[in-house]
């Protein structure tokens, strides 16, 4: 109980919010819109998986939104040229991996602070993308949307696939030595080195994974509509970071669980529709998001304070 305090309290908050909706806005639970809402969160979920890994290894990556945008445009242009989706996917994954690797080289091997490196790469990708694409939407061929399946099959596939990925990564993180190495490096890189783990390689790998996941997320976003908006990645990094933070991943590294981040993401992602359903004006959204983040960390702070005294 104690060990899972943060995950449980976030899940509790989510359940509470869902209960409030069940009482005052039962039509929130119409199956089809619910499915659509969940589907729309799958790209953010994929990014949150990556961000959780990055934060466990004691780094941060604020360039993921920009990476996401670049990958979306790469995948979009390739799909628009008529190439099969698998080619677009491979290209997006590769583009993401390359951008992740660049971060990784600068952060892991040159030892530069990740917040500043990813700030610089964020600006770089975002500006290059703007210059290249000029905000132009990319219209996709008809067979791209929902992988050419029906809408509900596509939506279910996306949800199933991304939750499966979450579960898979979560399992790997817990039960494969590579996963434990991420925790070890985030907890104490020097101790990890002495234990025969290569912290640089681990950190580098995590950034490559982050980039690759950004590519995957971009494709999962692309198949949800017949057009690619080159601005689609803007501010996504903040959402992924906020989800991980609310879900109990420590910025000091070494601590955190994927299902906590998942609960954090769901909580944050439910606030926006909840406002609509409860007829709260849109201009409260940011303030409420901020309050939720603060409450989550304040609860943690009060708890650890009570424990130490």
């Amino acid at each position, binding site marked *: 109980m104690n060990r899972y305090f943060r995950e449980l309290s976030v899940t509790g908050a989510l359940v509470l919010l869902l209960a409030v909706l069940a009482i005052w806005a039962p039509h929130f639970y119409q199956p089809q819109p619910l499915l659509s809402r969940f589907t729309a969160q799958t790209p953010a979920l994929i990014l949150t998986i990556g961000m959780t890994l990055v934060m466990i290894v004691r780094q*941060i990556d604020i360039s993921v939104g920009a990476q996401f945008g670049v990958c979306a445009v790469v995948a979009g242009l390739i799909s628009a040229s008529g190439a099969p989706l698998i080619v677009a996917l491979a290209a997006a994954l590769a583009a993401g991996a390359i951008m992740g690797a660049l971060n990784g080289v*600068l952060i892991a091997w*040159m*030892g*530069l*602070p990740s*917040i*500043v*490196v990813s*700030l*610089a*790469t964020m*600006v*770089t990708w*975002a*500006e*290059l993308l*703007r*210059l290249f694409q000029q905000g132009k939407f990319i219209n996709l061929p008809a067979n791209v949307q929902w992988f050419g399946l029906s809408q509900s099959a596509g939506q279910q596939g996306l949800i199933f696939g991304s939750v499966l990925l979450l579960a898979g990564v979560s399992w790997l993180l817990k039960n494969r030595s590579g996963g434990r190495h991420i925790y070890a490096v985030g907890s104490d890189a020097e101790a990890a080195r002495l234990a025969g783990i290569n912290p640089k390689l681990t950190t580098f790998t995590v950034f490559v994974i982050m980039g690759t996941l950004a590519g995957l997320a971009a494709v999962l976003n692309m198949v949800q509509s017949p057009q690619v908006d080159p601005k689609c990645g803007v501010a996504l990094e*903040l959402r992924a*970071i*906020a989800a991980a*933070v609310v879900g109990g991943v*420590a*910025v*000091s590294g070494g601590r955190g669980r994927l299902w906590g981040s998942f609960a954090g993401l769901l909580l944050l992602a439910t606030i926006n529709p909840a406002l609509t359903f409860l007829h709260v*004006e*849109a*201009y*409260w*959204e*940011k*303030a*409420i*998001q*901020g*309050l939720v*983040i*603060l409450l989550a*960390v*304040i609860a*943690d*702070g*009060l708890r*650890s*304070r009570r424990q130490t005294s």
Partner: protein
Amino acid sequence: MSSQNSRSIKSLLLRHEVLLVLVLVLEIFYFLNNARNFGTPDNLSNIVRHSAEIGLLALAMMPVILTGGIDLSVGSLLGLCAVLFGVMTHDWHWATLPAAFVTILLGGLAGAFNATLITALRLPPLIVTLGTYSLFRGLAEAITQGTKTYRSFDPGFLGLGEFRFLGLPLQGWVLGFAALFFGILVHLTVFGRSFRAIGYSPEGTRYAGIPVLRRTAMPYILAGLTAAVAALLFTARLQQARADAGTGYELAAITAVVLGGTSIFGGSGTVYGTLTGIAAIAILSNGISRVPAVLKAGIGGELASLLTGALLLLALAAPALVRLLQSARKQPTT
């Protein structure tokens, strides 16, 4: 001893600030030769006026980062303070002066809110200010219901946006005063000494009998006050107050501080480095938009951002590269 001396001369040459000043000189030299009307007094005053708010935030951010913290909320706080100032002068019909005073006070209060969460609850600054980043902007939007824009302020107040004294715009004087204030605070008082010690080791500083929590709180409160001052300048310059004022300024401020050689991990850095960083960015973005080829292509804004990013990476990587080259022979002794 002699090897120590030669090493310190070498390290002085490799000092971040020295390299940055070189970059700055290079920039100025290049733009004077290649950028249209770069060196005119009017343009120089533009550079100062346009970089004043971000510059103020960067100067206030510097001691925060020096303590090993960060404040992501300053841009949002600028917006909130601008809106609050609008509420006081318009909705409550207060006179400009008391409204400005109370605005600054409220800015300090918001900073104190950050500081309380960070020190009393020992929460990580990144997370706390990520929360208030959203909260402050959200409050600004909620107060104005997102849409309201406060305009037609007192003409005397608006005049400040264009006011010059001895040829230097008001913004320059405020920026200079702030630089002096933070420079003295960081370099010449025990407060700055404490910030540095806390940045290196908060626990160790506590064991030296220094009130770590109070000292850690101080830069955040100052950042709040400074954000409020920047909000007033911003309002005077733009002749309006709206909830989106200062969007993205926190990242610009952090960029200037880090470019200026302050370690993002805390402990080391100088205020004149920060000032150089501010100047390097401001001059780059002003000058690059005046180079004929860039003008013709119409890519000034993008290129300024790209080059700033590149400069930031280069500035960070330069010492790391030097270290990497040397590391074959030299490693830290234990």
